[in-house]
């Protein structure tokens, strides 16, 4: 029979062991951190989006906050990043963190990486951390979307914009939930959310992100055949997608 002191030591030691992370926890967080660095990137787009919306449409500010909140950092982080960080500082921070954590993000493609650019997709074409999007395509796309949004707002189509903003926010929220589920290795839930997105937003804005999330969910569930089939279609349809590399590096790649 051990005395109380021994018992206390044993329990504390056991508790430390039980509460400590595993090697896979360490790898996963490191990988997620690399993925999260993509969140630093689109500050200029967010800033211009917020400026444009506030100039013409006060309700847009609410969307800006909602988008910020959905991006994983929460409202305060999203807004403060949008207002405080310059593009150069963000890019430098991204590169620095990726480098500091050791290695190229693609070496360990993180689920978070795939969905993190959702925020940029909401305002412009997503820009990957490891493989920058085609600048011409990116500029054209984001410019088109921005001018299109501005035109609509200037025409005073407030209700349409509100409706569209609300729909986009909902789509973003669901994608964010799917991302979080994948981060927790809960691919079943992630896949369910993606299916719900298909039903609710059959013509959604973030289709590439959704497809990539679905493929990674299938990979995580070990449904490699389905993942390969969908990955094949994805790569055919979006060969230049910023997600293409990640899809290739998933379970789809080896098939």
């Amino acid at each position, binding site marked *: 029979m051990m005395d*109380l002191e021994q018992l*206390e030591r044993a*329990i*504390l030691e056991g508790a430390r062991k*039980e*509460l*400590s992370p595993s090697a896979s926890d360490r790898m996963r*967080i490191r990988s997620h*951190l690399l993925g999260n660095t993509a969140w630093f990137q689109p500050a200029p787009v967010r800033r211009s989006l917020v400026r444009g919306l506030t100039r013409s449409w006060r309700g847009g500010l609410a969307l800006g906050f909602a988008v910020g909140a959905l991006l994983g950092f929460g409202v305060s982080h999203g807004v403060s990043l949008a207002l405080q960080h310059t593009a150069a500082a963000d890019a430098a921070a991204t590169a620095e963190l990726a480098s500091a*954590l050791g290695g190229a993000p693609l070496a360990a493609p993180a689920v978070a990486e795939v969905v993190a650019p959702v925020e940029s997709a909401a305002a412009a074409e997503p820009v990957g951390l490891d493989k920058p999007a085609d600048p011409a395509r990116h500029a054209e796309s984001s410019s088109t979307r921005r001018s299109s949004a501005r035109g609509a707002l200037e025409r005073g189509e407030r209700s349409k914009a509100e409706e569209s903003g609300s729909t986009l926010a909902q789509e973003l929220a669901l994608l964010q939930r799917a991302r979080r589920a994948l981060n927790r290795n809960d691919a079943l839930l992630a896949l369910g959310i993606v299916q719900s997105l298909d039903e609710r937003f059959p013509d959604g804005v973030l289709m590439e992100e959704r497809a990539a999330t679905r493929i990674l969910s299938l990979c995580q569930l070990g449904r490699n055949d389905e993942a390969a089939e969908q990955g094949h279609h994805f790569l055919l349809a979006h060969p230049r997608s910023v997600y293409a590399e990640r899809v290739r590096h998933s379970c789809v790649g080896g098939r």
Partner: protein
Amino acid sequence: MPDLATLFRTHFDFVWRVARSLGVPASGVDDAVQDVFLTVHRRLSEFEGRASMRTWIYAITYRTAQNHRRRSQRQRFDELLEEPLAEGPGPGEQLESARAGKFVMQFLEGVSAEKRDVFVLCVLEELSAPEVAEILGVKLNTVYSRLRLVRADFRAALERVAAAEGAR
């Protein structure tokens, strides 16, 4: 100044453990730990060296864990409390780490937030009282006082378990 990779290697285990033992639910630990290191990364240039790097990171961890805990509230220990402790093999040499973890988490659930914070940092993580005082922003004597009380509570909890075990 150490780089982020070094800080991650050195402090990851601590950050994880503190997040868990301060009540962040298992499903939220990933997010909490990421938040800590993203905050460290963002604010590294602001670190002035007035406290040790360790204390600075621990303070960020503590605040982040508090925020996450507030968000999750009641669900925080659900995963750990699913299995009743009394049905296990009992404390002693056979006490497995899983049960020890549950015992400690149940204990922490039952004490005040002030005592819990001191217990986690001083007893579980074995930080010095001055470090804990700095992290929590309280006087050194307050730390000692809370530590004395929470240790007594912990001993009492152990005695109850040991007595129950002896009565079997």
